[in-house]
């Protein structure tokens, strides 16, 4: 069995405040295989972005990683000293953010920003770096790269800018890219282009992708596997076809039902009543139970763990082993 590229175990991200410590990511574990696309989907505030930020080590104080391990190809990275971690960023793990306009420094030409990244990680001379930058721009689909390499960010349209951002993230050829809502800030017509581009680039370079988004449609098209997050926890994770076609967790089922399908024969879209709980008022037991149409005895009392079920893993008492469920009820 191939070794996981990224391995996250029991990760916990917390924020100490004067009202107590708020836990935003609560004991999540997952793997990403080399070259695979893992989608991470969930509502705003579910903790998806924080997970990505934690992996690349950019959590801002007072937030911090409270517990857990993050391993890259078996080596622990979450406890690395800052300088060693810096060398991993960009070189082995890259990250792309939502808004391409604010992701680029407006005062520097993009050629400069590209070359800078290349030189930092590979130490080549300026000429080589520039040639590589041109190649990258061509690869991400910027027309006439020689003309545009000396442009400033504001001279590009939104879609083109996101391509530049992708080029920057791929400049040092990382093994994993964390893409945090890469299409949310773009026009719908451009979104598809960027997603296709992302898929192609990662296939060509063998890069794994952690694709964070709230858009199930993007996941369905792009991801190999998908993790569904709710209130800082992973409630279901599995191959994308399985999760989309036969969602196990009631929350996932609700998400799938809420996607408009033009060819399906439905009269109403499914709506999940209520909203995700705030960090300061997390329900006991399963975090979803107050909104769950299928909640029963063990749900409010104990938190279900991620257990395998068929191709996928799910954290729900409905699918737990009978003995575990009985224990919880007791």
């Amino acid at each position, binding site marked *: 069995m191939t070794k996981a590229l990224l391995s996250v175990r029991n990760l916990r991200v917390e924020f100490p405040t004067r009202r107590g410590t708020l836990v935003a990511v609560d004991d999540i574990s997952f793997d990403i295989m080399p070259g695979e696309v893992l989608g991470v989907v969930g509502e705003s505030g579910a903790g998806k972005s924080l997970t990505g930020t934690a992996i690349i080590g950019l959590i801002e104080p007072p937030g911090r990683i409270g517990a857990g391990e993050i391993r890259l190809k078996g080596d622990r990275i979450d406890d690395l000293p800052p300088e060693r971690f810096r060398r991993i960023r960009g*070189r082995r793990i*890259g990250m792309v953010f939502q808004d391409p306009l604010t992701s680029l420094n*407006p005062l520097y030409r993009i050629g400069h920003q590209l070359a800078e990244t290349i030189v930092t*990680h590979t130490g080549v001379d300026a000429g080589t770096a520039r040639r590589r930058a041109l190649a990258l721009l061509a690869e991400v689909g910027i027309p006439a790269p020689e003309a545009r390499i000396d442009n400033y960010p504001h001279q590009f349209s939104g879609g083109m800018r996101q391509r530049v951002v992708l080029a920057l*993230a791929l400049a040092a050829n990382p093994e994993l890219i964390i893409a945090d809502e890469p299409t949310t800030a773009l026009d719908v017509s451009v979104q598809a282009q960027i997603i296709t581009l992302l898929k192609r680039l990662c296939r060509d370079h063998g890069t794994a992708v952690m694709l964070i988004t709230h858009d199930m449609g993007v996941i369905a098209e792009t991801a190999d596997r998908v993790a569904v997050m709710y209130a800082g926890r992973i409630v279901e994770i599995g191959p994308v076809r399985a999760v989309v076609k036969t969602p196990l967790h009631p929350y996932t089922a609700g998400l799938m039902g809420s996607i408009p399908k033009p060819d399906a024969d439905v009269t109403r879209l499914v709506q999940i009543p209520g909203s995700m709980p705030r960090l300061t008022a997390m329900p006991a037991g399963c975090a979803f139970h107050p909104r769950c149409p299928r909640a029963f005895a063990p749900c409010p009392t104990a938190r279900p763990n991620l257990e395998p079920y068929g191709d996928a893993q799910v954290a729900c008492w409905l699918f737990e082993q009978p003995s575990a469920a009985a224990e919880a009820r007791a």
Partner: protein
Amino acid sequence: MLAFLVRRALQALLVMLVVALIAFTLFRFVGDPINQMVGLETTQAERAQLREALGLNDPVIVQFVRFAWHALQLDFGVSYQFKQPVVTLIGERFPATIELAFVSAVVALLLGIPMGVYTALHRRSWISTALLTVSLLGISLPVFLTGILLIFVFSVTLGVLPSFGRGEVVHLGFWTTGLLTASGLRAIILPAITLGLFQLTLVMRLVRSEMLEVLRTDYIKFARARGLTDRAVNFGHALKNTLVPVVTIVGLQLGSVIAFAIITETVFQWPGMGLLFLIAVQSADIPVMAAYLLLVAAIFVTINLIVDLFYALIDPRIRVDARTA
């Protein structure tokens, strides 16, 4: 970019026009233009004649144009108090003020920018806290109090630095400089520190707050995510983006430095324009007041234009026209 500059130039012209109007109003209606030319014995008839001869009964617009025309030729009339042409008076004292302002600004920038960067990058160190506390003093102490305290310590108690005057000056054409003589250099130290302290504080706090803002942006986050070194992120990216608005604001402050020089010059009896203006205010010497106003306005407006030009050159969003791909 051309359109931008033209717009700014027009704005500058408008400001000058308004100031000229105010100066003219002061000159003509608050002050008495024939004040210095008459004695007590002059009869009413002679005064009326004089008014006519000076064109004081012409329509106001005509008088204003005449005033503006004279002003452009640097003819501001004669000071009520000193009985000398205003332009001569100001001209003699202009270099003193400019040198003082310049030296204090340089000191403030050379010290303030590094201090600001340091306090932004090392937010929790005790040095930062100390610097910020001292900076609070810098804002709180009125300029004249700083001057007096400095005089008290260095002139009265320690006796090492002079407390008044400019020292020996060297004449270079129409300019006089105190920077080329030992006594001149010693004389400028305390006034420059006095005038520079509050500027230093301002610069330091400005750099700090701008840098903190910049450090929170997405492009800095992305730069870090790309694994750029701390040095590249903090100085290559953050500092450059910080300095652009900082230089703009500092440039705009230069004008107020010239105004605050009034206070410093008073405390140290520094023979500059500011002291002249103060004496004019105290003795209601309208021609000097009006002329100083116009001159200072011209300086401010010029500095503003230069700063705008600088900003346009530095920020590519203004310099290079935005084109969509």
